[in-house]
């Protein structure tokens, strides 16, 4: 078992950290596209119920000075929001009617 990366009270989400604690949208997007609907649904079902609590936890720290474990949790929340579209809206990993189109996020605020 690898070392815990999330704040201790979110230990139950630890099993998703290796896959979904990703720093940038291009990485998260690629992960969503490479995941099955079962995997996305399982991640969503595990994380969404804890999301409000996780946001509140991250909100205790300044955006640019989060402790490492809160920052990882923050990344997990970013992934959850991206996955939410597959689960809540499209009910499939891909956007309906997107065809072969691609839109790249080339700049995003950090932190």
């Amino acid at each position, binding site marked *: 078992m690898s070392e815990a990366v999330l704040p201790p009270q979110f230990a139950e989400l630890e099993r998703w950290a290796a896959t979904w604690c990703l720093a940038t*949208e291009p990485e998260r997007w690629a992960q969503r596209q490479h995941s099955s609907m079962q995997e996305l649904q399982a991640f969503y079902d595990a994380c*969404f119920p804890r*999301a*409000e609590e996780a*946001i*509140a936890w*991250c*909100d205790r*720290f300044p*955006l640019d000075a*989060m402790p490492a474990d809160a920052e990882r949790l*923050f990344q997990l*929340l*970013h992934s*959850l*929001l*991206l996955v*939410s*579209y597959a689960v*809540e*809206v*499209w009910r499939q990993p891909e*956007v*309906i*009617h*997107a*065809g*072969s*189109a*691609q*839109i*790249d*996020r*080339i*700049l*995003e*605020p950090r932190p």
Partner: protein
Amino acid sequence: MLFPAEGPQVARFQKPAEGTWTEHHPELGTDFVSFEDSISPAFYEREREAIFQRAWLNVGRVEQLPRNGSYFTKQLPGASIIVSRDLDGRIRAFHNVCRHRGNKLVWDGTPRGETRGNARQFVCKYHGWRYGLDGACTYVHQQDQFFDLRREELGLASVHCDTWAGFVFVNLAREPQQSLRSYLGTMVGALEGYPFDRMTERYSFRAVNASNWKVFSDAFQEYYHVPPLHTHQLGPTPEARNPEYTFEAAHYQLDGPHRMVTTSGTHKHQWPKEHLYPSEALTRSGSTGPWDAPDLGGKLAGVNPSGIARWGIDNFQVFPNLEILIYERGWYVTYHYWPTSHNTHVFEGDLYFVPARSARERLAHEYAAITFKEYGLQDCGTLDGTQMGLEQRAFGEFPLNDQEILVRHFHKTVGDWVAAHAREREGAPAR
């Protein structure tokens, strides 16, 4: 692409005395419209010269040039340029071409890509010629090998450059026919005092699309397509997600080559929770942006010009290829469409927010940015098909309804510019 800020209840709005927006502008007519201008390689060549070599083009924001010495490159149709802030703080633009043998001057990795950074001078990779940020040639390698070379006469080729409301514009004409402010006119010009400068948290998106630049722009000049194409955007419930839901924009306005549309409706943050996606409720955000607006002070310059109640979005189309969408919730978006051939273009979408002060605010911005891409992909995918369909030439002309008045105005304006340029070239007096 973006949800029209309408609730399930449909509002109806006062139209001009003629009864329709289109007939208020008789020069537009109500006939079927040809999109040959979007599929013809020959027309594209004329358009590139008549429009992209003569109109003021927005290439970025002043925030992209934060310090003296900041620069970025930008590929325009037919010309790569350098935009820089010189050592006196003045913003300038130059053709990105070395005076010596015409090599592309500033690039990083590949001459086909864009770059940005901070520099005290530009050095040509080929023979080492150097230029100051004011474009002056400062060094010629082995100058004594040349023939009566006067270095001071060999600076970079300047491009006309001006700023308005923090937007940096260039004009590739030798002498632009109008100043930038005169070109922008009163409708767009009224946005001058809008607090764009406070919205510095930026998300940038780029797509290479297999359609003419105007075909993509057309989709964002009307909201008629939103209920059928973006059905999911309306919400998770059958009541919200009704593809037969009808939409009317509250106000349309034309000013010279520019145009705008205003939407009105029940804001998403006022919707009953059962009509929201769980993540919308969680983040208090979505397609009309974060629900909790920043305090921008009093009345905002230039927005909602017709004073519509329950104002939602203003969508300003600045000719030829810039759109500025200003949201009631205190953020804005820009679109740019850069043609690369008659049936390809690069689309840029940029979202600008007042910088988040907390993790919760950032996630509200993030969810709006995610939403932008999800529905934007539907537009990109569909418009690929539009280009294919138009190129089939199964039909010569197409009907446009009153909600598509801006599409009609856009294609007429493009045609007028191309025709006027042709008359000028033939020596006939321009209209």
